[in-house]
């Protein structure tokens, strides 16, 4: 599984949607059940999967799929 596929799967599993729905437009603005529980579950799963620890600003900015790709790239994980 590629890094991008892993990231898509994490989003799909967290929000209980199909992988086809995970696009760059998938964000806290467009998803109904995006709240502190889903965002922190998302962040911790990403940290565990890619063995990274996000900085505070990145945890708080982790609010869309496109932003997620940008953030993990800073830690050397290139989707």
């Amino acid at each position: 599984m590629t890094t991008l596929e892993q990231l898509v799967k994490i989003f799909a599993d967290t929000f209980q949607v199909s992988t086809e729905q995970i696009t760059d437009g998938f964000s806290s603005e467009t998803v109904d059940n995006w709240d502190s529980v889903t965002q922190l579950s998302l962040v911790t799963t990403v940290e565990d999967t890619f063995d990274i620890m996000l900085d505070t600003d990145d945890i708080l900015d982790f609010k869309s799929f496109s932003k997620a790709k940008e953030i993990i790239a800073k830690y050397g994980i290139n989707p």
Partner: protein
Amino acid sequence: MRLSEYDNIVIAGMAAAVPSQKISVETYYEDFGQDTVQKFSEMAGVKEVVRAKDQQTASDLGYEAAVHLLETNDIDRKDIGILIFVSQKPDYRSPATAFVLQKRLDLNAGVLCMDINLACSGFVYGLQTAHALLNSSNKKYALLITADTSNKTLSREDRTMIMLFGDSGSATLLEKTDVQNHKSQFGLRTNGQKFKSIITPAGAFRNMHLKNITEEWSDGIRRSDYNTHMKGMDVFGFSITDVPLLMKDFLAHTNTSPEDYDVFALHQANLYILKQLSRKIKIPIDKIPISIDLYGNNSSNAIPLLLCQHFAGTEQPNLRTFICGFGAGLSWACGAINIDPKKILPILITDAYYQDGL
């Protein structure tokens, strides 16, 4: 930061009480989905919480903890000069619940009684206030009771809160001593600009006429104005920015480092926040005991509950203990205190409640 320091007051005893009813996170599989609940449990560290019975108020839990404490410590109750009750779930709109507790504990008229309306920072604020009042009085003891039944104002459909919060009470006895080697230090901060971050909008006097109707809010969760609402990510951001900043400032002002403390008794907000604090302050994780797994987030009781769970009955010597609480207000505080494990009682389980006759 507001700093204060005392050197003649010791923690003479501490007790905590929890209800018998345990609610496992698995209870919510049907409501929120198994995957969501399991991810929440892994992130927040909660496996189950304790929940008060309908008739059981916060003060009932605090009272039982106080009785447990006072019966164990053979002191003359007339020497208690201060009774502080910290809670966001009082018995009545008026009078303050501290008066109910004064009656039930049979304390005499020479006691200063008052409530403090605080949540997760409440133990540290209450402890600081009790130190200040005891220090300036002619009495020997102060009794600090913290208790909350947070669940009573939560929407059963609010997955951000209902799986997280537990109900409990605690009692801490402070004693003034002649020996001036019991240094207690406190550092406090407040940000009222963020008072809406954790709020129960109705039920008091600002929004007296709101109807108790459950409807979907902008976050997609159904609740009423009588339910407590938390802006989860705002509070999380505060918890991993402002709180570690205070902890660092406090360490700098007291010229101490994590190596100088035996224990970091931190508010059990959620496990992920505790890991973030450990990382930011460079605290070895084995110095941060955990109780959120079995009890959840217990508001102002989190710190005494944690200390009772982990240190009651142990033979360890005095523990230099760093305490830190943070939450509604927004309000956050930390302190450095001495804990003698021999003075810490095991957690009491009780469903007792007061039949006031009204």
